[in-house]
């Protein structure tokens, strides 16, 4: 509650003196434990802002809404550490100018919400480094551990079963802050690389292409996973890719606003285990 009040008054102050044109935060949702995004444009609306442990969605994707930042005015946004990492990637990929973004950083342990110190992207580098150095316990993702123990055939069968439910609604894409392309590859039909119908081949194509597009970019915010209407554990694929790039290239997504994309940059010390 203290953190919520602190940020409410900060939002009021920034909106009142015109230092930001909008605050992107959370408001109560359709059920008691759901929160929906709130776009606060005026001083009065700021009282609707809610901040508690149920505020889990990564809101950074809203920043790249076409035209939002083109007037060069500033926007404040509530971000968890993963959200700050997404923001760094968006800046590194030239999708926004971080100088326009004021961060209302927060994190939660249990039901306890705490604010993060700093309000500009560059001020969180120590926090992000410590997340890199102290990865979550394996036991926090029992399913991931379980999948990794499977042999390739079992794993293939597992994902085939999971993907069989995919209805190609692309909610994962829409909710992902990294999926900002004006035209997604699946919307390109000359040629139609990814089969649009919802059968095994097309479902595999889509989900594998997305996993590759997120290699070295996914921060594990879980937006895709939560938005999936058929509950495919998408975060696990991306977590696996993130672990691969970390191990192979020591690349931890979203370290800074100048981090080079892992798949487009080359370092002499890169391991070349894939060259036989």
């Amino acid at each position: 509650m203290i953190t919520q009040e602190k940020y409410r008054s900060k939002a009021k102050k920034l909106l009142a003196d015109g230092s930001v044109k909008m605050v992107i935060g959370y408001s109560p949702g359709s059920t008691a434990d759901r929160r929906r995004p709130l776009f606060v444009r005026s001083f009065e609306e700021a009282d609707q802002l809610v901040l508690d442990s149920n505020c889990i969605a990564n809101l950074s994707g809203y920043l790249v809404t076409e035209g939002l930042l083109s007037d060069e005015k500033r926007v404040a946004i509530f971000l968890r550490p993963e959200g700050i990492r997404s923001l760094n990637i968006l800046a590194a990929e030239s999708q926004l100018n971080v100088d326009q973004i004021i961060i209302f950083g927060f994190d939660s342990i249990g039901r306890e919400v705490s604010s993060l110190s700093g309000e500009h992207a560059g001020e969180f580098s120590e926090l992000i480094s410590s997340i890199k150095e102290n990865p979550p316990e394996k036991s926090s993702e029992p399913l991931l551990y379980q999948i990794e123990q499977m042999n390739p055939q079992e794993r293939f069968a597992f994902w085939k079963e999971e993907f069989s439910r995919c209805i190609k609604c692309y909610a994962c894409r829409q909710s992902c802050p990294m999926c900002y392309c004006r035209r997604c590859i699946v919307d390109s039909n000359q040629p139609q690389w990814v089969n649009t119908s919802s059968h095994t081949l097309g479902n595999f194509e889509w989900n594998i292409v997305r996993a590759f597009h997120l290699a070295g970019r996914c921060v594990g915010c879980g937006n895709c996973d939560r938005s999936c209407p058929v509950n495919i554990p998408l975060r696990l694929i991306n977590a696996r890719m993130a672990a691969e790039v970390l191990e192979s290239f020591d690349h931890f997504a979203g370290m800074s606003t100048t981090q080079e994309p892992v798949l487009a940059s080359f370092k002499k010390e890169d391991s070349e285990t894939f060259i036989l």
Partner: protein
Amino acid sequence: MAKIGVFICHCGENIASKVDCTKLAAAIGEHPGVAVSVEYKYFCSEPGQESVKKAIRDNNLTGVIIAACSPRMHEATFRKVCAEAGLNPYLCEIANIREQCSWVHNDNDMATEKAMDITRSMIEKVKRNNKLQPIEVPVTRRALVIGGGVAGIQAALDIANAGQEVVLVEREPSLGGHMAQLSETFPTLDCSQCILTPRMVEVAQHPKIRLLTYAEVEHVDGFIGNFKVKIRMKSRYVNRDVCTGCGDCMVKCPVKKISSEFDCGLGKRTAIYTPFAQSVPNIPVIDKASCIYFKNGKCKTCMKSCQINAINFDMQDEFIDLDIGAIVVATGFQIQNTAGYGEYGYGKYPDVITGLQFERLATASGPTSGKILRPSDGKEPETVVFIQCAGSRDPSKGVRYCSKICCMYTAKHAMLYAHKVHHGKSHVFYMDIRAAGKGYDEFTRRTIEEDDASYVRGRVSKVWLENGKLMVRGVDTLLGRPVTIPADMVVLATAMVPQPNAKEFAKTIGIAYDEYGYYNEAHLKLRPVESSSAGVFLAGACQSPKDIPDSIAQASASASKVLALFSKETLEREPVVASTNEATCAGCWGCVLACPYNAIEQKDILDRSGRIIKRVASVNPGLCQGCGTCVTFCRSNSIDLAGFTEKQIFAEVMAL
């Protein structure tokens, strides 16, 4: 409506012995859009090519498939055939049914099936091919020659004498390279300096040659005909423009005991120095590491002695940017660090020396004025043992190759020794005598028969000092017994190795190298002087160990390649280049980073009032090499490669 002609080549037996070409031609003839499907023994032959042209004209073909060998082999041949028959050459594709089919399969039926799949797949591709026009790029008619040894000198002179501009870059203070260090040269025994120094002077005075000594290539960008090169002019601390080379500074310099690199440690030099008396340009440099002023801020004796104030201790490195059309790499070699041969006592016994050190002893301009004297006591050696392959052809020391020149120079050394020390006796340990070259075998025979060198076939296991004599223990494999020869001096025929920074430098200019660091030619037999990068040519020992005649021949060959390139004002380039879709580009700049040729730049899309609507990636077709790296990176599929468009590749895949 597509009218595709398919021409199935037997390649003699190469394809026909595994692939049933008649069956293939019949099956392909049924494929939608195929107007002609024929087979022939050799389509690359004159009548074969004529039959393709005739079929194109007679049937108004809209595309051609040559089902034959790899496109690397004959794509250019058949594209030319199509162009001559009036068909855009980029409407011709090769279906590789030799390297990728007949050569690698045993089962005839399955090979035939696979050949059908490969051919069908290419037919579907060619249906979607676009007519492409070659890209014309201007050629900067200025060559860069890197390395001022004999190969670089020859290449520079040949290009300049044909009227084209040359920039010659040498990292040492003087031109000359290793050849300037040599005494006399086999097989004619002309004095090395006497034949080299006039050419060095010619380079320096040539109106078409810009000579940059004590300079290094820092950075190379661009592509054939249009390289951008950055040169670092290392600070000499002596003004090149005013120094007259009088040498007063060198006489006055108080630091006189520095081991001379040019004399391989057998002579001494000062801190301000020229490598040798005939240096070109005859302008000294200050060796910062040895100079007293740079060590403790006091001295400047040379500055006081200079009557024209040419010395400037505040001089900084300077950079020169050059537009260059072609590059000749002639960076030469080094000799192997002989310290690896502990058993021969190099470094431990002063009278065990390398072949290059012997050259310095034997040359009139050397530290002993041409007298063969022992480094230890300055006495004339009565017995000299030469050990060949002291490094070469020895996998345990990391050099598996033959250094090529050692058999000849060892024979020359034994001969020079016999001429200078009449009562002396020389012994040569050898593995084989490799004297292939004009007048070479006659030369080694002369050493053995007229100059009384005793050749012992076998290796040396150990050299040790006993009662003032170097005891050389080896084996005479022809007699099958060990031999021990007491010697006054031992000369090691050290291996030639690439320059220590050869691999790093190859990365700077973007050429390939082998496991040792020698630069790779584009084709060992057919394109021996071209590097793997277009517009970069190789000359001399940077490619492989070479003697002087070979280095010069290769340098002249490189020069002729450069001149052929400079014979036209523009250069035609393959139109296989990438282009971006500005409507869908998300502007993440991954492609900009991924492009190995820096061919992609950011482009602003403006509205009518000049405001930026968005920024997108844009490919410079002049720089693009068509590698496709950007295409694979682009997440929104906003980049396409002409000649390999997504539609073409997709159709190819779907036809399988």
